[in-house]
C-alpha cells in the first residue's frame, strides 16, 4: 500500500480517507469513531494513492487534523456533528488559546456594515479575542481586515481546498490569516469550492466560535446557517441593529426580534463572552460604530454647510433628495458636499451621500 521503506503517518491516511470521492462527512465520522485512519483505510479497502495525497498536502504546508490526533481543535471533541478530519493552514493550535467570536454577514454589505465589521474585528482582536470568519467578500473580509491588524490570532473557515484561495480577491488576506492564525477547511487539497460546501462551512464556523455576531444579513442570507447551527449548540448569537429601510439589515433586525442580543459596542460582545471580569488592555472607550459621537468637524465650517451636514445620515441619501430638502441649486449643494467630504464628514457612494 505504501511505498517500501517509507512509513506514512496517520495524518496521511486521514487525508486519503477524506479524499475518497464518495466519502461523506457522516461516513467518515463513523469510520473514525472507533478506528485510527490507517486501520479504517485498510479495512475499507479504498482505492487511492495515499503517498501522493499526503505529498500534495505536505507540499502546500497543509496540516491534517483528525479526531484523536494531537492537533485536532479541542472545542470540536464534544460535538457529535464535528468533521472527523480537518485541514488547516497555519497554526492548528492557535484556536485553543483564545476565546473566539465569529463575525459574519452578507457578501454585498453597505459601507456601514463594512465599517462596523472592521472596527469590531480590530477592537476584539486587540483585547485578545480570536475573530472567526469565512473569508468571503463583504462582511467576512472586512472583519478579518480589522482582525489581522494586531492582537489575537485570526481564524478562518473556508469551503474549498486550501491549495486554491477562493475568492481570489482575498488571496492576500487569506495568506495573512494563515500566517497569523489558521485557515480551516473540511475539503482536502484539490477540491473546488462547490455550492453545497458553504452551508457545511457555515456550520463548522459556528462550532469553532464561543459567540456569533451577525453584522448585516438579508432575510435568507448564508449567515443564517451559521446562526441556526449556533442556536442548536446554545452558542449565543448577537446581531448588529441596522436601518429598517436597508435590505441588508432585514436579517439582523429580525434576529433581534427573535431574541438575539443586540451588539452596539464591543462591550456587548465581551459581556456575552462573560469576559467582563477580564482586565481589558487599553480598549478605547467602548463606542460602537452605531453609537459613535457626531464628528464636529473643523471650526471653519459655515452655517450652511453645518445645516447640510445635519441633513445627512448614515443611510445614503440621493442627490435628488438633498436638492429637495435644501432647496439649493446643484452647484451650491455640490460645493457644500465637497467641503464636507474634504473635512472628512461626508462621503459619496456611487452618487449617494452619507455621513462619514
Amino acid at each position: 500500500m505504501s511505498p517500501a521503506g517509507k512509513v506514512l503517518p496517520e495524518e496521511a491516511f486521514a487525508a486519503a480517507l477524506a479524499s475518497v470521492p464518495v466519502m461523506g462527512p457522516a461516513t467518515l465520522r463513523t469510520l473514525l469513531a472507533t478506528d485510527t485512519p490507517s486501520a479504517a483505510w485498510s479495512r475499507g479497502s479504498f482505492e487511492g494513492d495515499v503517498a501522493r495525497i499526503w505529498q500534495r498536502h505536505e507540499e502546500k504546508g497543509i496540516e491534517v487534523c483528525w479526531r484523536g490526533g494531537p492537533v485536532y481543535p479541542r472545542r470540536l471533541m464534544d460535538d457529535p456533528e464535528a468533521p472527523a478530519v480537518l485541514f488547516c493552514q497555519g497554526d492548528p493550535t492557535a484556536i485553543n488559546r483564545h476565546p473566539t467570536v465569529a463575525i459574519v454577514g452578507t457578501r454585498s454589505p453597505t459601507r456601514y456594515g463594512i465599517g462596523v465589521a472592521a472596527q469590531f474585528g480590530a477592537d476584539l482582536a486587540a483585547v485578545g479575542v480570536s475573530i472567526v470568519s469565512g473569508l468571503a467578500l463583504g462582511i467576512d473580509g472586512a472583519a478579518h481586515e480589522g482582525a489581522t491588524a494586531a492582537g489575537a490570532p485570526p481564524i478562518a473557515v473556508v469551503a474549498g481546498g486550501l491549495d486554491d484561495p477562493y475568492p481570489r480577491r482575498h488571496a492576500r488576506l487569506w495568506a495573512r490569516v494563515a500566517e497569523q492564525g489558521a485557515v480551516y477547511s473540511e475539503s482536502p487539497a484539490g477540491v473546488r469550492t462547490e455550492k453545497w460546501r458553504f452551508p457545511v462551512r457555515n456550520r463548522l464556523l459556528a462550532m469553532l466560535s464561543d459567540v456569533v455576531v451577525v453584522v448585516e444579513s438579508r432575510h435568507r442570507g448564508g449567515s443564517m446557517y451559521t446562526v441556526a447551527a449556533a442556536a442548536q449548540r446554545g452558542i449565543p448569537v448577537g446581531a448588529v441593529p441596522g436601518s429598517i429601510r436597508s435590505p441588508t439589515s432585514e436579517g439582523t433586525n429580525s434576529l433581534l426580534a427573535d431574541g438575539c442580543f443586540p451588539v452596539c459596542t464591543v462591550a456587548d460582545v465581551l459581556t456575552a463572552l462573560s469576559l467582563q471580569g477580564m482586565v481589558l488592555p487599553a480598549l478605547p472607550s467602548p463606542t460602537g460604530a452605531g453609537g459613535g459621537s457626531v464628528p464636529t468637524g473643523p471650526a471653519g465650517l459655515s452655517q450652511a454647510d453645518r445645516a447640510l451636514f445635519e441633513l445627512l445620515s448614515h443611510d445614503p441619501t440621493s442627490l435628488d433628495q438633498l436638492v429637495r430638502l435644501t432647496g439649493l441649486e446643484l452647484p451650491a449643494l455640490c460645493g457644500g458636499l465637497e467641503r464636507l467630504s474634504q473635512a472628512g464628514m461626508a462621503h459619496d457612494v456611487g452618487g449617494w451621500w452619507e455621513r462619514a
Partner: protein
Amino acid sequence: MSSAARIRPKGPQGRLGSSLDLAIAVGVLVATNQLPPSCTDGLSFCGELGLNGSLRHVPGMIALADATAPLGMVVPLCDVREAALVRGDEAHGVSSLADLTEILRDRTEWPAMPPPGALPPLPDTPDLADVKGQPVGRHALEVAAAGRHHLLMVGPPGSGKTMLAERLPGLLPPLTLEESLTVTRVHSAAGCVLSDGALVSQPPFRAPHHRASIVALVGGGSWSLRPGEISLATHGVLFLDEMGEFPVTALEALRQPLEEGVIRVSRAGGTVTFPARFLLVAAMNPCPCGEGVFPGSCRCSDAERARYTRRLSAPLLDRFDLVVPLSRPDPAALLDAAPGGSTAASAARVAAARQMAAARPAGREAPMHPDAARLLALKLRDGALTARGLHKVSRVARTVADLMGVERVSEEHVSDALCLRTARATVAP
C-alpha cells in the same frame, strides 16, 4: 416598339437603383425622334418610372441633386421640394412621363411646386414640464446640451432615464441651415420619410434598440451602403437605452465616430464616409437586477455585476463627460413637487450658455478661480482624477459656469462637475 437599356458598369456604391429610369426613357424618346434633341438642353433627369408611366419617389434625392451638373433638374413631383433645397428654381417636378413629353415638346410651363402640408408633420418632442422632480437629471440634460457633453445616466428601472433622454433634443438649439442640409442629406440617403417641407430643421433623436445589428448602427449593407443610426443622429441625439445590453462589438464601433465625427464604412465595393457628429446619451441599470445604485439593495452576485460592467470598456466610459446617478423619485416628491421647468425655459438657458461659450475667443483658457484650481489639483493628487478626467471635469465646470452666466469658473462649479460623474464608480469595469 420596345427598347431595352443596360447600364454598365455598376456604380462603386453598388446598384444605382431605378433613379436613372427617367433619363433612359427620355434618351430613348429622343433617339426614336419622338422628341426633338434640343428640348433636353440644360436639363438632367432623375426618377423611377412606374409601369403606367408615372414618376415615383427616389430615395436620396438631395444627394443626387448635389451630385448632378448645375443644370435644370427634372425629378418626380413628390421629390421636388427636396431637390429644390439645393437646386432652388432649377428643380422641376413632374408627375408622369406623359406630362414631361408634353412640356418638353410644347415648351409649356413647369408645374408649380406642391404646397407644404402634403405630409403629416412630425410629432412634437415631449416637454420637460412633464417630468416631476429629478433636479439632477434635468441639470445634467442642460449641461449636456449646453456643452455637447456625452451623457450616461445610471439608475434603477423607473428612475426616468428614458423620459429625460427623449426631452434632450428639445433643449438643443434649432439646426443652422448648413446643419439642416447635412441632416436632410443623411435622412434622404437612408430613405427616411422626410418631414413636411423636406428640410429637417429640428435636431434628430435616434434611439436604436439594443438588439440592432452593427450595420444598422454604423451603416453599411450589401446592396448599397446606407447610413446607420449614428449618422441619422448627426447634429442631434443618439440615445442608447439599456447600454449594458448592447453587444460589446457594437459599443466599441462607436469609439471612432465619437472621436472623429465621421464613420468610414468599408466594403469590397468601396468605402464611404458618413457624417456622425452626435450627442451620445446612454442609460443603463447599475447592475443586472437594477437596484444597485442604492448601496446594499442589490441582489446580484459579484460575478454577475462584474460581467455586466465588463461590457463597458474604460476607453468607451471615458467618452462620457457626465456619468450621472439617477434615483427613483420618492413618492413625496412626485405628489407635492410643483411642475418642473418647461423645455422652453431650459432651452433658453442652454442657448445663452452656448452664446457665452461662442463669444469666448477660441483656444483661450477660460478664467478659473484659484479655489477651483486648488480643488482640481487636490483631486488629481488624491488619485480621484486622472489627467484625462481632470480635463473633462474642468470642461464640464466651464459649461456649468456658462449655464449660470458666470465668467469665472468657481469651486462650486467644479464640485458640481465632480458630482455629475460620481456614478462612474458604479459602472467602471
